[in-house]
């Protein structure tokens, strides 16, 4: 039986038969429904706003994460993997975006929800954080957690400042490298000076001063330092290597956090301590989160 015969499938498909019409009708009705089901099952319903937790190892990032999630600090150890946790802003803070919403509004509840992305702070594992920085999706802000007690010492200060320098430089590159004239969305940075309860901890304004000084130092020694091996190893011409960027106002003079405003990054420093306080001591951090949510 060839395809052009009277009762072949091809003829049946084009004939005004009841069954053909029924099948076509079903197909026309069900296909969009199935497609809808398939696509919408896959896609997450909404993407939550997200805050990145960055900072050197042992600063208290994971502890802050657990405090926010369960209102109590869990015991933590050095992280080896990043984690994204869905958390709720504490009751006594109102997100910036819903100042005019009434508390009963379901949209109000929804707006208090956000993701906290914890990253490992160990030197070898910072690529988790830097990849997120290079391509931030839906990141509303960066919380750079540091230990205010270790910042009081030279070695700790240097490590923290170098990490912070790299983070700020990545943010600046993102701004200057943007193709649109408007520039990318602003990503503010909160420097959360943790462990204020310790006796040796520096107060927030001193942390600011010390960090600014240390970052200027880092910038200076980076400028003097050797070039990267990248271009030389891949056999490219020496003169062509890309121009290096300097943090804040072309890398001249001393660095201040205020200089970051120009590249769409506001830096705020707040003190607090996660452990030995029932959330009340990190109020200023939550306020900052609320004002950017």
């Amino acid at each position: 039986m060839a395809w052009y015969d009277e009762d072949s499938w091809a003829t049946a498909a084009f004939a005004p038969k009841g069954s053909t019409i029924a099948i076509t009708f079903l197909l026309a009705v069900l296909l969009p429904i199935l497609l809808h089901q398939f696509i919408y099952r896959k896609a997450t319903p909404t993407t939550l706003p997200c805050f990145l937790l960055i900072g050197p190892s042992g600063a208290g990032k994971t502890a802050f994460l657990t405090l926010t999630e369960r209102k109590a600090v869990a015991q933590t150890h050095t992280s080896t993997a990043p984690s994204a946790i869905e958390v709720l802003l504490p009751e006594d803070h109102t997100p910036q975006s819903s100042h005019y919403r009434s508390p009963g509004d379901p949209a109000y509840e929804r707006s208090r929800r956000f993701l906290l992305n914890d990253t490992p702070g160990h030197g070898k594992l910072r690529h988790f954080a830097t990849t997120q920085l290079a391509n931030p999706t839906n990141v509303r802000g960066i919380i750079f957690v540091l230990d205010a007690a270790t910042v009081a010492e030279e070695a700790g200060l240097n490590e923290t400042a170098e990490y912070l320098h790299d983070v700020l430089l990545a943010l600046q590159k993102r701004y200057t490298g943007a193709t649109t004239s408007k520039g990318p969305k602003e990503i503010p940075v909160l420097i959360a000076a943790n462990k204020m309860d310790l006796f040796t901890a520096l107060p927030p304004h001193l942390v600011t001063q010390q960090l600014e000084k240390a970052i200027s130092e880092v910038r200076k020694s980076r400028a003097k330092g050797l070039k990267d091996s990248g271009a030389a190893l891949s056999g490219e011409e020496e003169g062509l290597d890309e121009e290096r960027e300097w943090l804040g106002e072309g890398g001249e003079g001393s660095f201040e956090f205020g200089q970051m405003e120009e590249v769409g990054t506001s830096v705020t420093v707040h003190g607090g301590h996660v452990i030995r306080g029932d959330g009340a001591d990190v109020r200023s951090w939550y306020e900052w989160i609320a004002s950017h949510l």
Partner: protein
Amino acid sequence: MLDTFEVLTTSGVVLWSRRYSPVGPHIINSLIRDVFIEERVQPQAEDAGSKPTYRKEGYTLKWTTAKDLGLIFVAVYQSLVHMTWIDKLLDNIRALFIGLYGEQLKTKHSSVVNCDKFAPYFERQIQDLEGQSDSGFSAPGTKLTPPSSADNESADEFDPKIPPLQKQHKPQHDTSADSTPVPTPDTSRPTTPAQSHLLTGRAGPGAKLSRRGKKKAAALTSAPASSGDEASVKRKGKGSAKKNRVWGDFGAEEEDPSMVLDYSQSDLRDEAPEGEALAEVNPESWGSRTGKGQFVLKDLDLEMDQIIAEQNAKKETSTSAVSGGGLVGSSLGAIGGLFRNVVGGKTLTEEDLAKPLKGMEDHLLKKNVAREAAVRLCDSVKRDLVGLKTSSFTTVEATLRTSMEKALAKILTPTSSLDLLREIQTVNASGRPYVLSIVGVNGVGKSTNLSKIAFFLLQNHHRVLIAAADTFRSGAVEQLRVHVRNLQELSKREGGQVDLFEKGYGKDAANIAADAVTHAAKTNFNVVLIDTAGRRHNDQRLMSSLEKFGKLAKPDKILMVGEALVGSDSVAQARNFNQSFGPGRGLDGFIISKCDTVGDMVGTLVSMVHATGIPVVFLGVGQHYADLRGLNVGSVCRLLMS
């Protein structure tokens, strides 16, 4: 005795812990740092049948992981105590924990796992295993299983269907004794009836035993279980006993009229919770009657063994699924495997990875990575991947590739900052010159790289003294003199100051180096660069002088120069030089010279870092003074994977 047992996630949150004596968190932190992140301490091979161990400050740590859920189980105990059952405990606890909380762990965007009720399971396991190892297997009236490690494994995988079947027509305590893979004498299971007998016997003539007392007796019969059910019984007993008991002036008052009137209060406080508790407890679910009519709480053992057996069976099927099956089964499996290989969502096993890993190893070997380093990298990638599911639309090869890139980046990334200029600044601030010395095998370019570093320091306006401590090879001092003359010419234009410190040939190198440091301090030089004689790394006689050198000159930094050209010998070189400075002192970094001559075969970098865990500080990429570069981890990884 066990000090601490913790269940934590890879993201650092402790889910459950039990501490018997205080152990500082830094102990486990250093385990994570040294073993999981820096891989400085090589865990012993797991095929020896035992879990890897790690020692720190008199503690021994044993651990096991559940890759797919991102869990780490750590047991900490004093190194003095020899505990043979820790491995078994870790295995059992892992199976239990995953069995009980696996679902909770898989929820996204949450770190909370509600595992308050895990304690009794854990206690029970400890008791089981401790008893098993203590008084051995001489318990009367129980089936014996020789507790050799091999048999434990097999005994563990008994049919999970047995316990419920037996439960129907046997007293409960017997079944659990049967179904326990290894008898547990110290839990007094065989003596349980006798004990409860005694108690009830006493209760008989003693006439009225309070209701609470009876409950206590019932609880006692299952005392070793110390289960969560017990808690619920207690709660219930307490609830009914406490109800309406009011303390008056003369002890307990039976009835208080004022109390009766306050219906709302009693409703709120007493009735509701009690009713709830009563409703919750279904007699069948938490106990059974023994032949003598005594009420015995359902044991945790049964549940525990079931969970463990289930987990083991799951593991069994997943491994046997690959090997088992007839012709049809295997071919279907092969097709399915192929399909999944393309689409993703395949759970990786060692067999899946064997071939691509071999390919990856060959690729690395071609890039001049030493065999030892290549094998280790592949092993760490394998450890990373086995048990993982490939994400959608990625093949096994692609997954392997990204994982290998990550492993390479991890091994090459330095742990701390390598900023030479800042270090010089801090050392000079303390009022002494910064001393940097360079060691290495003959002909790798020690003097050349030393002069490159001198050039770099001169550009930064430092005052550099070069000490010629190579008193062996003829022409070595003259070679340095030429370099210094060239550099002096440059420094006239660039600023800075450079000079040579020499004492001729045949003298002791260590003394010359020490003299150079004192001379520099006197004449206001702020950096001393010490050149040393090249030596073969496997010649004990030559290497032994390095220890004295390290002690006398006290260099702030010792850099070793290695050629990029060298092959598998690089591992031995790095290791021997690292150990030659005596205990407590090692190398601080590597300079890999002649990188321009090898193209993309930069495997030596990986080999050297692998052997010692010491970072690469500089790369030599040419013949000129300015051809010194810092390490760019990303580009090296790209070259290696290309």
